[in-house]
């Protein structure tokens, strides 16, 4: 089965609304990262968060390792937040990241 499952697959918000993106993984992850990809753009790492909660700006990532889940919270969304958000895990120390299928976010003004 799929190792990394993300939900929802897509999400449409009005500017100013909050978003909660979910990531569930089927095996123990030693590392977990959230990435952002602008349409047609490169992937950019948002958070490296194997456990606990991290904040940057309007973004908050919370990973509960023993429950094999992570979330990405976007507060007060802006149109520039539109794009696809990916969760990726690494197992062991082999440096291989396995990505989910992503959540496509569209924020409308």
């Amino acid at each position, binding site marked *: 089965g799929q190792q*990394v499952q993300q939900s929802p697959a897509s999400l449409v918000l009005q500017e100013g609304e909050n978003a909660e993106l979910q990531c569930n993984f089927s095996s123990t992850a030693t*590392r977990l*990262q959230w990435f952002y990809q602008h349409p047609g*753009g*490169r*992937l*950019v*790492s948002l958070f*490296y968060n194997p456990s606990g909660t991290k904040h940057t700006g309007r973004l908050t990532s919370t990973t509960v390792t023993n429950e094999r889940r992570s979330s990405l919270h976007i507060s007060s969304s802006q149109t520039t937040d539109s794009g696809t958000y*990916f969760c*990726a895990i690494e197992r062991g120390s*082999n*440096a*291989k*990241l*396995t*990505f*989910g*299928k*992503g959540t*496509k976010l569209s924020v409308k003004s």
Partner: protein
Amino acid sequence: EAGVTQSPRYAVLQEGQAVSFWCDPISGHDTLYWYQQPRDQGPQLLVYFRDEAVIDNSQLPSDRFSAVRPKGTNSTLKIQSAKQGDTATYLCASSLTGVTGQLYFGEGSKLTVL
């Protein structure tokens, strides 16, 4: 500091043709990855190198795909006899061993096979 550079940005082929993609990682990064990203999907690892050595190429379709990194710096991914199913964006990424959470991607090479 220059980021990861890839070329060409776009390629359009007929089935059966060959194409090569080139990647220049961030200077000093010892690990280099090639990912395949089909439209509306997440990236899938094809192969990765540490210096010039292939560490894992288990997901590389070996009959038509090949990748090299001869001097442990730049890398080339070649697809021979392309198929429509190879249509995807090919992403290169680099990192430095021991530095966690720092994986840098290039802009990708978008391949369309007609």
